[in-house]
């Protein structure tokens, strides 16, 4: 059996598996709609049913892609009919485009959760105090999490900075560890939060297998793959945004540290992806260095916000204690100066290592 035949069979097996799996969301959508009718929760369950329909449609389309690819790969005969390649490629491209379109039009999970949250808000209030949990969980998933993560609007991106700081710290520890191996690279499932989540899941009879899976090699492989996909996405979208700025010199003149933060953020995504693909001390160091540059640039870019926030906090303290206003302002300027010095120091460190970053993200130096 040739490699080509093995892969064709594998694609056909995947298509068969997906065809069976597609019944799962279809059945569940029927259950949700039946339950909704029986309990008069039609508005509340509507978003969930639509989401399940979307999962079924995507699964069907993915199945179609695997099946068409296998069929076309089998039917193409370059020797007898060279034009058959064009026909086959056209057939596969058509299916791929439909799937792409479906993903583009797909029900976004966050939008669906938002719709669900809006629909259940009234129900939660109706159901009494305990039902507030539905609202709280939905609100956390949709709004609070997003705000914490992004910093909200143009503010300091607190979430990414915290996540980036953790990643830098864990990568540094990995570089320094005596027994380094690809299986110990910092991922969500072997970090503090991941380990605690897995341990929490293992306390439940229903979710224990998920907890064990998270800690096993399959979980590690999936989180690593997810990290690579996320990193590639971050790098591509970051690169696209940078390209929209046009000439880098002009963009720097216009946006200053904000532009440097965008460049360093993209480099951080790229170097993290490279580290996940090829975990070596060199790629880990590139990740740490770009991360420090990015964090320094973000802090510097938002120094006014930080100073304003510090000033507000100090005002509250001073007002509460009834202390003299001039004492407050002198302390504000001192603390603001300290933050500014820290940011400058981080920035200086960052600019010193820009050269090193440049070579670290050069694909020729990865292998």
């Amino acid at each position: 059996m040739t490699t080509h035949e093995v892969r064709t069979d594998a694609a056909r097996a995947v298509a068969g598996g997906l065809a069976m799996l597609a019944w799962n969301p279809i059945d569940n959508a029927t259950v949700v709609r039946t339950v909704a009718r029986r309990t008069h929760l039609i508005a509340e369950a509507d978003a969930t049913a639509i989401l399940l329909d979307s999962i079924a449609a995507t699964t069907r389309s993915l199945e179609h892609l695997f099946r068409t690819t296998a069929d076309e790969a089998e039917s193409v005969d370059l020797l007898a009919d060279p034009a058959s390649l064009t026909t086959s490629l056209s057939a596969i491209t058509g299916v791929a485009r439909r799937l792409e379109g479906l993903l583009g039009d797909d029900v976004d999970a966050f939008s669906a959760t938002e719709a669900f949250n809006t629909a259940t808000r009234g129900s939660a209030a109706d159901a009494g105090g305990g039902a507030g949990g539905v609202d709280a969980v939905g609100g956390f998933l949709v709004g609070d999490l997003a705000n914490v993560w992004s910093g909200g609007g143009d503010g300091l991106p607190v979430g990414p900075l915290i996540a980036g700081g953790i990643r830098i710290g864990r990568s540094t520890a990995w570089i320094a560890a005596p027994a380094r191996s690809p299986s110990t690279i910092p991922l969500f499932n072997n970090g503090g939060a991941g380990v605690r989540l897995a341990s929490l899941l293992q306390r439940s009879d229903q979710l224990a297998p998920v907890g064990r899976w998270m800690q096993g090699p399959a979980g590690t492989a999936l989180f690593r793959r997810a990290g690579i996909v996320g990193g590639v996405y971050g790098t591509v979208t970051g690169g696209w945004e940078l390209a929209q700025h046009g000439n880098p010199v002009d963009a720097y003149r216009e946006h200053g540290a904000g532009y440097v933060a965008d460049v360093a953020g993209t480099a951080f995504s790229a170097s993290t992806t490279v580290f996940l693909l090829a975990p070596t001390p060199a790629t880990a160091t590139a990740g740490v260095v770009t991360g420090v540059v990015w964090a320094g640039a973000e802090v510097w870019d938002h120094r006014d916000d930080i100073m304003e926030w510090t000033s507000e906090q100090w005002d509250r303290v001073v007002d509460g204690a009834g202390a003299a206003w001039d004492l407050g302002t002198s302390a504000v300027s001192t603390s603001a100066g300290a933050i500014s010095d820290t940011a400058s120091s981080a920035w200086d460190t960052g600019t010193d290592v820009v050269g090193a970053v440049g070579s670290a993200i050069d694909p020729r130096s990865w292998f």
Partner: protein
Amino acid sequence: MPTATDFDAAARDLDAAVERLQSFTWGLVRTVDPAAMSGSSLTALVDRSVETLLTETAAAGTQCALLATLCRQRAEICRRYDSLWVGYESRIAEFHRIAAMASPGEYVGSPPMPPSPPAPWVDRS
């Protein structure tokens, strides 16, 4: 209107849906062999589809679990309403008993009021 029994049954159905969605996630990870498309330009599309499916399935599972919680809370409220009705029925029976034994013109007090449903969707079993 649905009763406590209906809400309990709905919660169980939704719990089962959560379990089935969990098995869908396992099945998807097991079934989609990245090697089948490896090296082709379709790899990225397959990856993106799988990531989308995993994210959406997690969201749908969470929503089903939250709907099950909502159904259980409603079932509990219906049960509390049921027990208020039992109390009311015993009080009204007592009132009728006293009224039947009373002499004409004797004051027997006001009849007890039936409990009001705490929400429009609440019904007795």
